[in-house]
């Protein structure tokens, strides 16, 4: 059993290289026609030379951090803001800090400040609520 206290820093999760090939697969799954995710010709007029990662993928790195910490069925809420675009080739680090621990519906839950960083710059910030010691199969 994991003991979780306010102020606890979550083990960080790293995406070392945002892969444009994954963006293409993601665009197909999402049926996303927004060409900034897969066509370099669409982003050049915007002043960029790299395609832009999908928002859900940015959030997925935070979700992966939370699930690596408390199990694959632990996430109860993700409430986030996207502050700046993420581009192909970026290196990102998901981080989190526990801000509250409560009992809700008989489960112990942690509220966490979460963020996704590119170097010193936050590209996503928000809060997450997770079940502590969530069962592996949900």
């Amino acid at each position, binding site marked *: 059993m994991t003991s979780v206290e306010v102020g606890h820093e979550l083990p960080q999760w790293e995406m070392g290289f945002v892969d444009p090939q994954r963006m293409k697969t993601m665009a197909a799954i999402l049926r996303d026609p927004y060409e900034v995710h897969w066509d370099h010709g669409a982003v050049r007029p915007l002043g960029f030379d790299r395609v832009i990662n999908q928002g859900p993928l940015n*959030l*997925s790195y935070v979700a992966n951090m939370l699930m690596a910490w408390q199990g694959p069925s632990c996430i109860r809420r993700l409430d986030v803001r996207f502050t700046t675009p993420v581009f192909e080739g970026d290196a990102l680090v998901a981080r989190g800090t526990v801000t509250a621990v409560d009992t809700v519906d008989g489960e112990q839950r942690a509220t966490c400040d979460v963020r996704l960083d590119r170097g010193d710059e936050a590209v996503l910030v928000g809060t997450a609520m997770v079940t502590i010691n969530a069962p592996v199969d949900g």
Partner: protein
Amino acid sequence: MSEEDLHALVGHRFPGGVRTIEHWENWLLSDCTGGGQLGGDLVHPIALFHVPIQGAGTSIAELFELCGAQGAGSVGLDGYDWEYFAPLREGVEYRVDGEVTEVERTVSEQTGRIADRFVYAIEMTDPEGVLTARITNHWRIRR
């Protein structure tokens, strides 16, 4: 899009429908995140972007059309608020319903450029009618 037309979008209901998440879809989705497979029939939580949209009987393209987005760079993400009342599972037929909930027009004092906030909310219920997830997505449409 006029401001009147923008505000008329509030309350617009999507057709609604059902959506089942297949194993292949979950596998590819999880692979895209770089986090590996979750195991069993658990669905990666990031499925709460496209599954509610598609299950509600709409699409990203239709949402762009609805809010009048035009061209690359016209759509920005403000944020997501996703609630999970139970884990999502492969092979379960979820009922999906939602609507546009908020809009707001803003005009930059510096540039005069218009940007509209566009918010929609969608709920997913399991075959027993139990609420499984609720999403509220905030987009910004640059005019």
